[in-house]
């Protein structure tokens, strides 16, 4: 068993110079870019939701405050227990045409990242299709997938996986 470890200083040194053997090769540096700059924290004052959402969407007593649909392993079928929830959101979107919704599909960590991205998309699409059938307009809806990349629960057991096999219905200002 052998280990090859080069101190960071050596790597820095190598990166610092750009000449290459035989002078003709382009194996130069890869400049750094930083994306997703610092955000600005929003303070919430008395009673007004920071995102400007009506109380009906945020009141814990309202069914509309619930946003998640959970799925079985490797499945993108919306289970019967979520029918009332999806129906309530479809009605809200029908009554409030100025609102737009982003539906994010998620999966557990098992399997290929890209396949999971497609599986999460199927989940988001299934919720979107149901919302559209119940009256929401196509231009109010966008379904995207986060695959296994943004787990709500970072654990590696069935309980965590079940929490991560999920579609979230988010209104403008929430994503």
């Amino acid at each position, binding site marked *: 068993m052998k280990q090859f470890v080069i101190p960071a200083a050596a790597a*820095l040194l190598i990166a610092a110079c750009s000449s290459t053997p035989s002078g003709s090769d382009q194996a130069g540096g890869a400049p750094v*870019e930083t994306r997703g700059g610092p955000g600005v924290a929003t303070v919430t004052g008395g009673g007004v939701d920071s995102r400007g959402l009506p109380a009906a969407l945020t009141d814990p007593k309202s069914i509309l405050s619930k946003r998640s649909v959970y799925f079985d392993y490797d499945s993108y079928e919306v289970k019967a227990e979520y029918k009332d929830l999806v129906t309530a959101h479809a009605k809200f979107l029908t009554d409030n045409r100025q609102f737009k919704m982003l539906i994010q599909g998620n999966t557990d960590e098992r399997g290929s990242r890209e396949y999971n991205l497609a599986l999460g998309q199927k989940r988001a699409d299934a919720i979107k299709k149901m919302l559209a059938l119940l009256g929401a307009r196509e231009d109010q809806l966008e379904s995207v*997938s986060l695959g296994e990349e943004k787990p709500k629960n970072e654990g590696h057991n069935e309980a965590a996986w079940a929490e991560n096999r999920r579609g979230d219905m988010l209104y403008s200002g929430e994503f």
Partner: protein
Amino acid sequence: MSGIESATRRLGRLFAAASLALLQATAHAELTIEITGAGANRIPVAIADFGGDAASSRVVTSVIRGDLERSGLIRIVDTGSLVMTEASPVAYPEWRGRGADALVAGSIGASDDGRQEARFRLYDVNKQNVLAGSAFVTSKAMLRAAGHRIADVIYEKLTGEPGIFSTRVAYVVRSGPARYELHISDADGQNAQIALISKEPIISPSWSPDGSRLAYVSFENKKPVVYVHSLASGKRAVVANFKGSNSAPAWAPDGRKLAVVLSKEGGSQIFLVNADGSGAQRLTSDGAINTEPSFSPDGQYVYFTSDRGGSPQIYRIAVGGGEVQRVSFEGSYNVTPRISPDGNTMAFISRRDGSFRLAVMDLASRQVQILSDSHKDESPTFSPNGRMILIATEMGGRGVLSAVSTDGRIKQRLSITAGDVREPAWGPFGR
């Protein structure tokens, strides 16, 4: 190994001032490579310390020895502290006595233009002749690159296949809950540089065939969007940002088109787009999942993953469209097809007894061989000479990279102390 460290430390002190300016561009965490399996009949090669400046010589000879040893096909014969230049007389019987089949000697000297020149000769000890000899002009800071070039020549002469020591590897490091970095390092894990830092995930890097650009998926806009990133300039272009998800970029071998997966028309469908994102043409029509496109090296077919048959399996379709052929049959989860550079072998991930394992299929006979015994293998990528397959896997709860030869004999593990390593993509040969 202490030889490498002391020599590079010395060089490090020399250039400490120069290196500070580039601190930002260089990865702090180092990728370490551990050999966990080697070929059965390794060629014994003696590599004497090169003549000329001792510190420079130590860098070059250490790189050559490290590269060749790590290949798994070559065994390094101990040469003690012997210094031999390319002009030194060769005592063939003595080297044969020490069990070497080949001998390398060389020197580091000043070139005509004031830079440094690494010269070497490779001798066949049994036939008592010179197999190869060459010189690489280099700056002091690029001595490691010269070492990789020399190792490539030696490897090719001795094994008959091109060496991959001068190639580069891209991978993603997650170093914190909201810190993702796209790294580019040399094939030996050294000289890592950061191409992109983001608070959101980065997945599926894919090298352009000329090695100048990377396509990848970034979630920096809260949804998957495909970018093409020119490494030398850092310029980025959005290639696919349609309504819905945009993912799984794969370059066509001619570098003019990319296959991408778009959900804009419902479901996940494979499209061909020009490298600037224009002219999207839909390739798949089935309503099921269609993803993970990968071109055959001749550019004629796109291999992909689909659940159209009820479980995820690998299929292929001609780039011009037409009938879809199923490629994988054994088991209920076969994903992420990648075709070897010679077009004969497909690497993929197969679920066996609940574990996700690297598998290879001989495309002519359809014979499948499982190459790993781990549980969470992902993202196979071939070395450009087709000898090795690099994958992401998990060790002790952390993401590491693992390289295995296509015959399963040679195994290496690449890990980073400061985070999870994932999503490897092996770059092409340099020009």
